[in-house]
């Protein structure tokens, strides 16, 4: 039996559950969250229907119309209209609706009908609609709209059974006759008329109890309160950074001692020599020193995922809109920037929801200043080595407070940079509008949170196993060769390539208080920020001699002055030490120039900040 692949496309208003449906159908784990504008790329997946039909399904960014106002909406428009190069037009469009909120989707569906594509209306989130007592006469709706209607619950097992059955039925009788595509951008009058038509159909087919989601209203009364809301936001961020520091400690210590024991074991069981040094100093000290930060990475992602699933992100954007507007940022820049706390790369991708080009560019330029999770290892290492772990005012952990300060420094400098961009480069700036749907709160689902955390943890470990590991091999090699001449009295590392390179760079970096070991570590640190920690681990482990299986933190505490440590922290707030981020900036802006601009301005800021920090600290007697 040679039936061709059936092509489905998921189209619908933002946050209607398209990606949830995609995941349910294909068993994928694409990102799902409770705010509009999560998906900004098209993603293809495959599944087989109950009757054995092979299906390809494409998940698309949510959109309110086919006009394509922003880069993400253009992706959807081009795919549906078959404009995207090398794409086949979908055989069947699944128009996904949030059943509790049909107005906008029905209007979109009426617009989509003009493309002539066969279509199905999927009434998703039907569980919530039923719970609220919303009654939809699906049969009548199907007749009025002229398309099949099916209900679904994307997040429940078996919740897509009806949709699968219907897909089989439809695919059996999909006409080969091509339908005329009569779509063109709707005029305002047509748009209004379609919305009227949609409202009329809804009035006929849907009975709404006037029972709005009281929970959402109650929570919003506090969370969106002009004053209390901002306090809640500050509290959430504060608890998040305290948690990253305080809660992770016990687990990190456990991991640390685990790696120490492993190092000792390798040291004891292998004969002294290159292999022993490679495994103990290169692999275990290097890669291990990064893996111990896994608990912190998990905690920060846990917080972000919980906020995203609950529906808080859009609220935070609401609260921050005017404050960020003062710095010349678009209100919708908030969610990309908050995602950048995890990693700047998805943050930069998420700027696709910003329609205004200049606003989008500004957001891309400052996103790398947000403290991403790869900085956590660097910050934590230095903080735990140099900042005493005592409580301030009885309950705030001083180390956590410094961590919070570093995050705050990142945020404030991002706002300042944005302000300067607006002031110097975009003089004729007119505030772009901010219009955002605030979705009803949803209880975060443990399974999706667990999957999210697991995926991020796996990614982190994968990086440790690939990028970081290969950089460690390089550093170990540089730090071990050439071997010292026989009878040399200085430490072996002084003869190595690493020392030669580091010492060549040292004059450049000595004004900011960096020694040659830091200089060497910063080079592989260009690949990814946390590599610097691993590189320091390796360099100091080799320098310390074969017996020294000390923890890297303890080594730093004896080798660096407080001024150097603080200078290093200041450096990492700004330094453009991440090749992947630069690559994404180049891709998303489509220009090498903006990548170079980002790199240079961050480097200049980093150097200046370290210079000031170091000299002030030395002047205060911390040298």
């Amino acid at each position: 039996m040679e039936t061709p692949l059936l092509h489905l496309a998921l189209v619908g208003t933002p946050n209607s559950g398209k990606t949830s449906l995609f995941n349910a159908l294909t068993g994928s784990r694409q990102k799902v969250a409770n705010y509009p504008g999560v998906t900004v790329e098209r993603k293809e997946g495959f599944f087989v229907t109950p009757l054995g039909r092979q299906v390809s399904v494409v998940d698309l960014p949510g959109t309110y119309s086919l006009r394509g106002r922003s880069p993400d909406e253009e992706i959807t428009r081009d795919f549906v209209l078959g404009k995207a190069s090398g794409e086949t037009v979908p055989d069947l469009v699944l128009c996904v609706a949030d059943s509790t909120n049909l107005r906008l989707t029905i209007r979109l569906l009426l617009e989509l009908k003009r493309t002539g594509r066969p279509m199905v209306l999927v009434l998703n989130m039907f569980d919530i609609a039923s719970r609220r007592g919303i009654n939809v006469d699906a049969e009548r709706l199907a007749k009025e709209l002229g398309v099949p209607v099916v209900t679904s619950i994307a997040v429940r097992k078996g919740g897509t059974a009806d949709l699968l059955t219907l897909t089989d039925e439809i695919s059996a009788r999909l006409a080969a006759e091509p339908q005329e595509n009569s779509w063109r951008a709707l005029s305002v009058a047509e748009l209004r008329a379609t919305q009227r038509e949609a409202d009329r159909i809804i009035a006929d087919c849907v009975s709404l109890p006037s029972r709005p989601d009281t929970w959402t209203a109650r929570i919003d009364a506090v969370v969106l309160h002009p004053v209390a809301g901002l306090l809640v936001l500050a509290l959430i961020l504060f608890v998040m950074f305290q948690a990253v520091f305080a809660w992770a400690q016990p687990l990190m210590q456990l991991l640390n001692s685990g790696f120490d024991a492993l190092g000792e074991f390798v040291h004891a069981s292998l004969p002294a020599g290159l292999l022993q040094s490679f495994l103990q100093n290169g692999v275990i000290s290097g890669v291990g020193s990064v893996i111990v930060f896994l608990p912190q990475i998990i905690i920060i992602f846990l917080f972000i995922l919980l906020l995203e699933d609950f529906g808080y992100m859009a609220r935070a954007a609401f609260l921050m809109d005017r404050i960020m507007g003062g710095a010349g940022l678009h209100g919708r820049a908030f969610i990309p920037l908050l995602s950048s706390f995890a990693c700047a790369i998805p943050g930069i991708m998420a700027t696709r929801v910003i329609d205004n080009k200049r606003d989008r560019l500004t957001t891309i330029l400052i996103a790398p200043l947000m403290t991403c999770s790869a900085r956590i290892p660097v910050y934590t290492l230095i903080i735990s080595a140099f900042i005493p772990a005592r409580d301030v005012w009885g309950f705030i952990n001083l180390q956590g407070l410094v961590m919070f300060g570093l995050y705050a420094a990142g945020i404030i400098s991002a706002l300042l940079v944005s302000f300067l961009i607006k002031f110097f480069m975009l003089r004729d700036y007119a505030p772009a509008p901010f219009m955002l749907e605030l979705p009803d709160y949803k209880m975060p689902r443990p399974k999706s949170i667990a999957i999210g955390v697991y995926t991020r943890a796996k990614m982190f470990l994968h990086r440790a196993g690939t990028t970081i590991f290969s950089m460690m091999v390089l550093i170990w090699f540089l730090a071990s060769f050439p071997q010292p001449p026989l009878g040399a009295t200085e430490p072996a590392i002084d003869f190595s390539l690493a020392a030669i390179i580091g010492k060549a760079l040292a004059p450049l970096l000595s004004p900011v208080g960096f020694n040659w070991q830091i200089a060497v570590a910063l080079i592989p640190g260009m690949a990814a920020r946390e590599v610097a920690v691993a590189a320091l681990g390796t360099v100091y482990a080799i320098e310390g001699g074969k017996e020294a299986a000390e923890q890297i933190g303890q080594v730093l505490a004896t080798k660096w002055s407080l001024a150097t440590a603080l200078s290093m922290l200041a450096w990492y707030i700004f330094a453009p030490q991440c090749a992947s981020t630069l690559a994404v900036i180049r891709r998303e802006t489509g220009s090498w120039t903006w990548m170079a601009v980002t790199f240079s301005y961050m480097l200049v800021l980093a150097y200046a900040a370290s210079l000031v920090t170091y000299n002030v600290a030395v002047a205060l007697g911390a040298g």
Partner: protein
Amino acid sequence: MTDTNETRPQMPLGLAQRGYSGVIQHLSAKDAGSALSDIELESRLIELGFVEGARVEVLHEGLVGRDPIAVRVDNITIAVRRREAMAIIVA
């Protein structure tokens, strides 16, 4: 068009206080002074459900300049800035 509430004067939603509730009379993008063109602003407002006859309620306001506002439009909540909300004439 029949005015649903004849006793109340028309006003832009952009001037409404928190707790205000009314019905959209018409859209008038040229009065908003938005960075968007009139057509674009009007299209976007319609796409978010701001059409004549829709019931709106101002649920929340921001801190700075009491901006932006969170508006209930039928059964969804939309955050907009007052500047853009000036285009929505309610009564």
